[in-house]
């Protein structure tokens, strides 16, 4: 489902934005450092803190995300459904290393600590219409 041309928007050059919703119906919007490409049908988000996003996704697995290409500002909208978490293994190690690199580049080294790689199924993807 995910086209190859979306990959530059999943390199963490610019933050991504995600919205979740609690079971009592309150939406929550936040920026995250990166959405990782796993395969054509899955992406991963980093679980770093036990925050509102984390709680919401355990209650209600549906998420919408915007990822953006750091060279062109082209944005993509993704509808996602939480699938499972990985606390070790190749995906976790890759995300852990890249997260530390992002933290270093943004002066936030030591702030980010990966607890798990949260893997989501991609339900839909489309390019943003925000650019002419």
């Amino acid at each position, binding site marked *: 489902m995910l086209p190859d041309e979306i990959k530059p928007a999943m390199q963490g050059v610019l*933050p991504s*934005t*995600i*919205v*979740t*919703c609690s*079971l009592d*119906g*309150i*939406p*929550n*919007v*936040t*920026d995250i*450092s990166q959405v990782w490409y796993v395969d054509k049908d899955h992406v991963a988000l980093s679980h770093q*803190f036990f*925050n*509102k996003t984390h709680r919401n996704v355990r209650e*209600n697995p*549906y*998420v*919408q*995300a*915007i990822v953006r290409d750091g060279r*062109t*500002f082209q*944005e993509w*909208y993704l*509808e996602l459904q939480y699938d499972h978490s990985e606390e070790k293994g190749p995906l976790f190690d890759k995300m852990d290393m890249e997260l530390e690199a992002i933290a270093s580049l*943004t002066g*936030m080294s030591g*702030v*980010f600590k990966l607890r798990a790689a949260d893997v989501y199924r991609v339900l839909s993807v489309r390019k*943003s*219409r*925000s*650019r*002419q």
Partner: protein
Amino acid sequence: MIPDKLVAFVHGPVVSFVGTRDARLRPSVSWVFGARVSAASDEITILIPDIEAEPIKRDAEQNARIAFTVAGPISHEAYQFKGTLVGLRPSNDEERAVQEIHRNKLISHLTMFPNTLFEGFRFSPSTALTFRVEQVFLQTPGPGAGRLLDLSALVC
């Protein structure tokens, strides 16, 4: 009352997004380009480009729940305002001027990017969505993100 510090922040060179959800609790997000804060009435009017506004308008009219996040693209300082819809309408000429001012602030602030990157954004026409702020959360990345702010402590 929304403190002056937060009013100035929202009116500054920030990037901002609005989140809503539908009757099935499926969330939607859209970019926002420009906002005006009425500190006295605890209301914020956000300008949502029509090109991406439809799901937000539909959700807001259905259940009135609004989440609005603003972030400094260099400082990473960020806040989330949550509240209830007051009204939706097409944006007016004054608000289009607010959007032009906002664009110029971003260009001046983000000097590491070429100006051409800011051309071609389709932020007009847009919808003015006004909501009453009920809670404000710190959203700056880190362990304190998500903390509910005591607004009375921030009023100077």
